[in-house]
């Protein structure tokens, strides 16, 4: 693969990645959104974080398969309780990492 071809590919990748990031904050921020849209968008974070997180915990392999036996899930449960209790982002990250490291050592 030639240098210019590589440059073209990554530039185009950058562009098609940037457009979906940019269009909503650029166009939806002109005037207040309708109330129903705001309410819907208010639910997006919980939904999207859950959709990003849960499959990582309970699926593995390529193609993905359901797998409840992963250390990630085992560590995620106490980490979730820790986050619920402390509401500390940094603390949760450190706690989760330490526990994951420990589980990794023991298993």
């Amino acid at each position, binding site marked *: 693969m030639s240098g210019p071809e590589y440059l073209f590919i990554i530039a185009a990748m950058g562009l098609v990645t940037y457009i979906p990031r940019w269009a909503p904050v650029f166009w939806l921020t002109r005037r207040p*959104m309708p109330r129903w849209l705001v309410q819907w968008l208010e639910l997006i974070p919980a939904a999207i974080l859950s959709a990003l997180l849960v499959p990582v915990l309970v699926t593995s392999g390529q193609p993905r398969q359901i797998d409840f036996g992963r250390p990630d899930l085992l560590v995620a449960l106490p980490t979730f309780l820790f986050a619920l209790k402390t509401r500390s982002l940094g603390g949760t990250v450190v706690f989760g990492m330490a526990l994951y490291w420990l589980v990794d050592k023991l298993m």
Partner: protein
Amino acid sequence: MTNPLFVKFYSCFAPTDLQRDSSGLPPGRQWCIRAAPPVAVETSVQLGFIEWEPGKDDRPVTPTDHLQGRETLKKGAVAAWPICLGYIPIGLAFGVLAQKIGLSPVQIALMSLLVFAGSAQFIAVSMLASGASAASIIATTFMVNLRHLLMSSSLAVYLVGRRRGVLSLFAYGITDESYGVNLDQFRSGRWGMGPALVLNHTANIVWVLSTAAGGYGGQFIPPGAFGIDFALTAMFICLLVFQLRDRRSVVAAAISGIMAVLLSVLIPGNLYIVLASVAAATAGLLVRPAGRKEA
């Protein structure tokens, strides 16, 4: 003696599940909950206008917009550290992989700078290795990163009326991770465009550097050291906890999680993120919001 404004003002804090712990609340609420009981009715009249409505009153102006220089830098960088911690091992791993298919550290850094999207970059590199056409790599990248459309829309709620140039710069840094942290901070009202941009670009610099470092010889770093592979998962767990504010959001998160698992097994790629989120948020709207009853 009951002042109607006071009643109205106070009733909007009815979701008692939220009052249990005020530390995770938007400051509007935090402040009111702390301030309302001890102070006189007159104060509550003054405060009455603060009646909090999600995405409305806490949206436009955040006090931290006026923060200057060092404080903005510090705030953004402090909030960025869990993201950076997670990006380093992934960036190194990406660099190692990219170097194996013959990319130089400069080429790797350039891709990280232009694209700035972890999973899409991994996929692109494996496609490059297998000799896929430019068009298919670009189309796949687009599909993989389409989820940012939803994230950007949900951030837009807090960014109404801001300058378009700044918004365009901010948009560059929207990743899964920066989205989660920025959204939580904007919601809380402790945030502004300054720290948000610092956070985005700190994460970006760390990403570019760690991918390039991986290209130089990241294979010497032992994988899985100190549980660092779990850093981003732990961060997402906590960010999700912050988002579970009422019955609606809990229902939306539960539906989304279950749907995402099922869809991720059924369909290849990561379209399941968008599908599950859209369906779950829509379903969440059907749930009567607890404690937000208009009397």
